[in-house]
């Protein structure tokens, strides 16, 4: 399977990465070379094989369903969370207007 220039442009748009024509010129052949390489996986018979879900088997831990049950993972850190925002206003992340 190989991808076309239009395919790569579509994928870039899905991934929200702006690409110009010269980016696509280099990317399309690289993309196809990588896909060609990974496609050898198709040779492997996996009919009765389950896909891996956890590399080291573990049961997912649950915490009590209350606010800040564990202070280590609790909230109340608004100012810290906003400190690295490109634009923050009134205690919120600020973005360009999305509704006219």
């Amino acid at each position, binding site marked *: 399977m190989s991808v076309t220039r239009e395919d790569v442009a579509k994928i870039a748009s899905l991934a929200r990465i702006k690409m110009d024509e010269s980016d696509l010129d280099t990317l399309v052949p690289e993309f196809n070379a990588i896909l060609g390489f990974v496609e050898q*996986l198709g040779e492997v018979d996996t009919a009765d094989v389950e896909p891996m879900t956890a590399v080291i088997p573990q049961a997912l831990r649950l915490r009590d369903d209350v606010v800040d049950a564990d202070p280590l993972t609790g909230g109340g850190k608004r100012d810290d969370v906003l400190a690295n925002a490109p634009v923050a206003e009134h205690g919120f992340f600020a973005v*360009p207007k999305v509704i006219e």
Partner: protein
Amino acid sequence: MAELTNLTLKAIRDGVAGGDFTAREVAQGFNAQIAAADKLNAFITPTPDHALAAADAVDAKRAAGEELGALAGVPIGMKDLFATNGVQTSAASHMLEGFTPHYESTVSQKLWDAGAGMLGKLNLDQFAMGSSNETSHFGNVVNPWKSAGSNEALAPGGSSGGSSAAVAARLCPAATGTDTGGSIRQPAAFTGIAGIKPTYGRCSRWGIVAFASSLDQAGSMARTVEDCAIMLGAMAGFDPKDSTSIDAPVPDWAGALSGDLTGKKVGIPKEYRVDGMDAEIDASWEEGKAWLRDAGAKIVDISLPHTKYALPAYYIVAPAEASSNLARYDGVRYGLRDLPEGSGLQDMYAATRAAGFGDEVKRRILIGTYVLSAGYYDAYYTQAMKVRTLIQRDFDAAFAQCDVILAPTTPTAAFALGDKADDPLAMYLNDVFAVPASMAGLPAMSVPARLNSAGLPLGLQIIGKAMDEQGVLNAGLALEERANYVAVPKRWW
């Protein structure tokens, strides 16, 4: 203070504890080495004051007769992928340039709690994606080693290339690394140092900039196996903040270290003997077998039939997870924002991500987006995860016959910067021996073995059973005791 910077981590710790020198003298010595090594470009952000403050705290504790931690007085390098409170954490990207966390990663906090100080944040491949340190937004790291008779700049390996170069050049006695598909072991081999990736889940991933979450694992890089063991002991341990952290006690790896392999079986995987293999790598592997036999081990032939599929499966799984993890860089919450004049939210996302990510990162996000997209998910991603199951079964079957596996770390010695930069696939193939252990979550380490005929270091790799870091470290020590590797790169920087 040049001689202090030649000491191992253990010798520094014991020397500080014994009063042979102060922690401050050690930190000053390394700070001076780093200030004089700009040509290596190993550090993105030196933090001499952090190292001095930690050293002063250790010296004061010692003066007060208080108990000292396992790394008291040892200044280390921190890969710039670990969040450090108040210090830029860039992942070597333009996207996170200037990002200054208000929190500390679990692993770095544990190191400070053990008495270590930070000499600086080390350069790496951007978002840990690369095998040569050429994808960093902050420039290439240069390997301190040179090929005999050549002045060509060589790659220090990647992604932990700043870590490997800094330890090899004596800019720090030890450094943190992270390994997703060989990013500790391959750079360690390229620079003649030791490095261990523990079992997936041993070290908390909390506060490490995420690349491929089912593979990412922190580990230690230093010049000796014992130093790696001491440092890893301080880094590892259960963390409720990481849902995949293993809730198991951390053994005293350094205390139980023994190079006596009597009664142990070492597996030699036949599939690692690839066509056109470098004859010197093959000879080094043979030599490694002889060393382990000499240490009392029995050498047994094993088979890992799906080895050749590990790398292609990795280049589906890792980009898929990366495309998902890196979706967070949207110009809203942290990092770069590029808002072209008059544009809306969607344009802002696309412009920010175009400006903030380098070529390799974009390539992997796009591959990941493609293999996860509707219509292709089963053919690529599900198939890769099934192959991953088969790779793990191969190891399970092999470990019924042996205790550890011996293999080369890399197919070649360090290559020149620029050599593979235009060919992503050739670059990926450099991790062919490292990736299978990552795909199976197994502990693995690289130990310096010898210099090749061009005078460049070669590494040998030990892969162990899940949770058996001790077995890996012990076999590593047995290699180290027989390799008598004492080579030091000739200073040109």
